[in-house]
């Protein structure tokens, strides 16, 4: 077993060995951190209704996420209309196309489309299920609405 590690190179001390380990390790971690900080903004998958209302979104087309407000869903010829909330602000959504299978009141959704100043016109819908798992008998543990800003 000892043979597999080979002979110690001449003059190499333990300290030298640790330095040879630490320098590349710190260098790689530095690069990783730099990449993460650079990517940070683009890693945000969706904005929240609060972001829209505060007018800080510059893109023409973007995604918003939030919870479908109870009692706000109505079916139209082209799709569905409903209100999405992050618990603080709400925006009206006009969705074109068939809603996702699990779409229902109270569920989280991520929508892709554009904001025309009064409603969000979406054409792509993803359902965002939360981290709560409950049985049909309604046994619930700490159910909290999905908060866009959490």
């Amino acid at each position, binding site marked *: *077993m*000892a*043979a*597999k*590690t*080979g002979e110690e190179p001449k003059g190499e001390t333990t300290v030298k*060995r*640790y330095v*040879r*380990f630490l320098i*590349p*390790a710190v260098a*790689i*971690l530095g690069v*990783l951190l730099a990449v*993460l900080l650079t990517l*940070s903004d683009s*890693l*945000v*998958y*969706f*904005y*929240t209704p609060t972001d829209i209302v505060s007018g800080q979104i510059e893109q023409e087309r973007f995604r918003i*996420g939030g919870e479908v407000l109870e009692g706000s869903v109505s079916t139209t010829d082209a799709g569905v209309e409903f209100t999405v909330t992050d618990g603080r602000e709400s925006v009206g959504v006009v969705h074109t196309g068939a809603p*996702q*299978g*699990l779409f*229902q009141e109270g*569920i989280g959704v*991520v929508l892709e489309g554009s904001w025309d100043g009064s409603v969000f016109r979406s054409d792509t*819908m*993803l*359902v*965002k*299920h*939360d*981290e*709560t*798992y*409950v*049985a*049909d*008998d*309604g*046994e619930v*543990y*700490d*159910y909290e609405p999905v908060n*866009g800003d*959490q």
Partner: protein
Amino acid sequence: MNQSQATVRVFRGVDVLTVALLLVGIVLSFTSPPDRIQGDLTRMIYLHVGSVVAAYVAFALTALGSLLYVITRRASFDRLAAASAEVGVILFGVVIVVGMIWGQTTWGSFWVWDARLTMSAVMFFVYLGYLALRRAIPNPETRANRSAVLGVVALAMIPITHFSVVWWNSLHQGATILSPASPKIEGEMAFALLTVMLAMQFLLVSLVRRRMQIAKLEDAALEVAVGSDGFVAGDAVQIPQMGGAS
């Protein structure tokens, strides 16, 4: 002699427990109640989360083995790092495949580039890179030293991936079992999930130990065949020749 017989017995016990727990876990996965919203689709959580926790532990073992190799220079720690990285990559592959099926059936998409999925993809390729690095260095000592650096640094991907759902808005839901708050899961489902998670830990130990044994035999055979210098990956591949191989 006695010591190694005791070790064999312990690991045989691990193997038996692995099979038993996996069987119980499979039964519980299908007898636990369906989720109120997702219905039976929620059963994918058992394999998905069970595998990811085992994969995280495997990658942690890679870092531990790497660190211990740097300190002690014992080849067995290098083999621990390599073996658990291989097992971890396979487990993480399972996580990604099951997750994609789950995503298609609940979100409506196999893949989205949200923070969690992006970081998972990065982590998967970092560890594939680790395995590729090991293949690229013929000298055992150089290989062990260099892969130890990556084996330790790559561990940073675990917190980045795990907390990505907290740091950035993502489509992927937050943590259920490993969340700081109390578990948000119904009791029977939680029991099934914890059973599968435990089974996957035993599976991990079982597989890593086997892979380490094989690696030890490989190392010994290689030394007999070519001495301690080893060989370059791809050595056996012949470059195509004009006019056919001679």
